């Protein structure tokens, strides 16, 4: 992400802080910065969410469309991800600078959702072998403040939670092509079961300890880390090692364990908040005005 220059003394300060379990802003090694979340912002999309994690600002929109399923998976719908790193996010994303990062995040999301434990794609099937729902998940990175993987995954989970898929009735004619009837009522929708959708936790290794939710300065001090996608039932669906440094197998195992525990906690709290938001009145929507 952003290239930050730090002096040797600043790096030493951060290192000792991590050892002491007191980071520059007072957090412990396993604390996240405050997250602000809102769903249902984009009225054109079937589902949307905006998540702010300190400086990082992510907007996700989900659109549903009918298409034919893959020949080898006739009973399943599919999810397609697209990440766009806006040039406003940080100067490095100017022109095509953000493409590499966008592709990386996109591919990691696809891998995390590939496991059967995360989302039940057969819920998206309309007519076996002929028609299914395709969910196009578009992620827009508006501002980059470190820890993009986590913010993106939480925003995608919230957007999918809020997605409303129109109900379809299949009217079969004898011998003819089956007809699909879309319900007239715009509120006659179904929702996905998003309990097990993975949350991603980034753990960066500094010295002998690892941190959750690193700031750009802390990322600069660290040489290696892992990105872990943890599903709702504490299972790990995807792992990626980032950074140019190396990791000892023992530290890798302990990082994975911590990552899955933190991921489970984040998951529970997020689901609780999303449930709370559903019960709110529509007039309390904030949008982009603040």
């Amino acid at each position: 992400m952003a290239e930050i220059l730090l002096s040797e003394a600043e790096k030493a300060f951060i290192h000792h802080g991590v050892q002491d379990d007191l980071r520059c802003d007072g957090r412990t090694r396993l604390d996240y910065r405050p997250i602000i979340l809102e769903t249902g912002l984009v009225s054109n999309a079937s589902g949307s969410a905006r998540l702010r994690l300190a400086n990082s600002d992510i907007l996700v929109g989900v659109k549903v469309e009918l298409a034919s399923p893959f020949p080898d998976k006739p009973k399943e719908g599919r999810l397609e991800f697209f990440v766009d790193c806006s040039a406003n996010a940080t100067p490095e994303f100017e022109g095509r600078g953000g493409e590499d990062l966008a592709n990386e995040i996109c591919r990691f999301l696809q891998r995390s959702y590939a496991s059967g434990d995360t989302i039940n794609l057969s819920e998206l099937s309309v007519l076996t072998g002929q028609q299914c729902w395709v969910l196009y998940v578009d992620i827009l990175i508006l501002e980059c403040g470190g820890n993009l993987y986590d913010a993106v995954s939480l925003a995608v989970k919230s957007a999918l939670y809020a997605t409303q898929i129109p109900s379809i009735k299949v009217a079969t004619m004898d011998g003819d092509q089956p007809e699909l009837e879309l319900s007239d009522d715009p509120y006659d929708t179904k929702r996905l079961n998003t309990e097990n959708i993975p949350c991603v936790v980034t753990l960066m290794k500094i010295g002998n300890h690892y941190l959750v939710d690193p700031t750009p300065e802390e990322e600069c001090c660290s040489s290696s880390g892992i990105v872990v996608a943890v599903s709702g039932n504490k299972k790990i669906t995807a792992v990626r090692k980032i950074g140019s440094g190396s990791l000892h197998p023992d530290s890798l195992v302990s990082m994975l364990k911590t990552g899955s525990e933190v991921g489970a906690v984040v998951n529970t709290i997020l689901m609780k908040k999303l449930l709370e938001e559903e019960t709110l009145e529509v007039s309390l929507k904030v949008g982009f005005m603040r």
Partner: protein
Amino acid sequence: MVDIRLASEVPPFHIVADSTEPKHLVTPGSLITKETGFMRGHGTYMQDDCLYSSVAGVVERVNQLISVRPLKSRYHGEIGDVVIGRVTEVSQKRWKLDTNARLDSVLLLQSVNLPGGELRRRSAEDELAMRQYLKEGDLVSAEVQNIFNDGALSLHTRSMKYGKLSQGCLIKVSPSLIRRQKTHFHNLPCGASIIMGNNGFVWICPTLLDDGAGGFVQNLETVPHADRQAISRLRNCVTALAHCKMMIYDTSIMHAYDASVNAGFEIKDLLLPDKIKEIALMVRKQFEMEKE
């Protein structure tokens, strides 16, 4: 461990301004005056004999000159300002520093003190040894000596209080929030020192007992836990004040620090949006009480 809030739960940030005198705030394109006879300053433009503002800021009037001082802009240097800069480049006989200005500021080799306080002409060996003193990424506190024709600032560290900065925490705020004071170096009673650069860079570090060799030797020992807590708390207080667009100077920072300690907030709680607003309101109340 994790704090997730809904956007509707976050209290709106009303600018907690010093209610000393009413300010003439303008936005880009708003009319300042229809009267003629005024000279146009920075941040304004003339259209159809009327004066409009081109930036969002405060209107300033000096006799017949009207200008608009923007609320958020790049640092505009004045001679004598204390700034904190980060070295971006080591060139021939000079260092280029990033000071949040429109151009990189210049620190000439002849404007720094040699180790041991020698006074002599800089030789070719000094030029080759430049990187041993300051290399890319180092932080320096300096004073503006001169302004070049193109607007770049020329800095100097010709005093024992300026020089390379050691361990600590840097915060970037808008330059317009830093008040011009007699001294920008403060040793706060809570156990940390703070340098408020006019360019918006605020540096918080543990109090140095010995002034050292003018910043040539860097102290890389572990900072004690109590000092580290003070530094983190100050960092969060400064960020909270900047978020609420309050002026940052030693008194306001100490008020915010004391308010956060008296209210029993944990250091990491000061990152939450409602605590930030509470701190700003407590500081404002403290100022109002002091006036009475």
